[in-house]
């Protein structure tokens, strides 16, 4: 599973992209966050308030309880501020 982080999430975590292989019970972005946060460090700090963090699955906005699997690209980022 490919995970991407943008803006201040990327800065807090220290990387913009990584390939992860979470356990089989990580089937949603919510479970993925919990699994990442358990690693501590930057993840814990970055995901302290997920209400301010958007999720995209395969480049589509998605909910924290949407299904995800091995081949998916999951991105976490703050609300967008372009334009």
């Amino acid at each position, binding site marked *: 599973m490919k995970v991407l982080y943008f*803006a201040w999430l990327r800065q807090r975590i220290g990387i913009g992209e990584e390939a992860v292989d979470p356990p089989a019970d990580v089937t949603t972005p919510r479970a993925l966050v919990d699994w990442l946060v358990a690693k501590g460090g930057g993840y814990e700090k970055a995901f302290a308030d997920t209400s301010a963090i958007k999720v995209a699955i395969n*480049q*589509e906005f998605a909910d924290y309880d949407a299904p995800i699997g091995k081949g998916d690209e999951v991105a976490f*980022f703050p609300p*967008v*501020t*372009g*334009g």
Partner: protein
Amino acid sequence: MAVRVQRGEFDVGAELKALTKGNPQIGGLCAFTGLVRDVNDGASVSTLTLEHYPGMTEKMLERIEAEANKRWDLEASLIIHRYGTMNPEEVIVLTAAASSHRGDAFAACQFMMDYLKTEAPFWKVEDTGDGTRWVDSRDSDQAARERWKD
């Protein structure tokens, strides 16, 4: 219909000219350009950097442009959005919509900007005198988008 995501500057006048050229059905063209300001939320800004999500950005912009063309009767449309580091007064974004009559051009152009502001994965970080800070999203942008909901 065209969407471009690029680092470099572009010539707004040349883009608009190319957009309408050869189509005498166009009676009105509405174009919006967003520019880097040197002050934001009370702090001076020396440079602005835009980060984006390559792939998803293009997909979202194309979807926004397609939706504008579905809602209004357009002869031509264009979205160009830059990323990377820019100075005050530089153009960040251009949305343009051309139609036989002006109402459709205005509505479509504003619709594309309002959607882009809340749905295109770009993030701004400002370099102020005291270091960098990520720009917060605005409730007013969310509200501007909501009014287009049917």
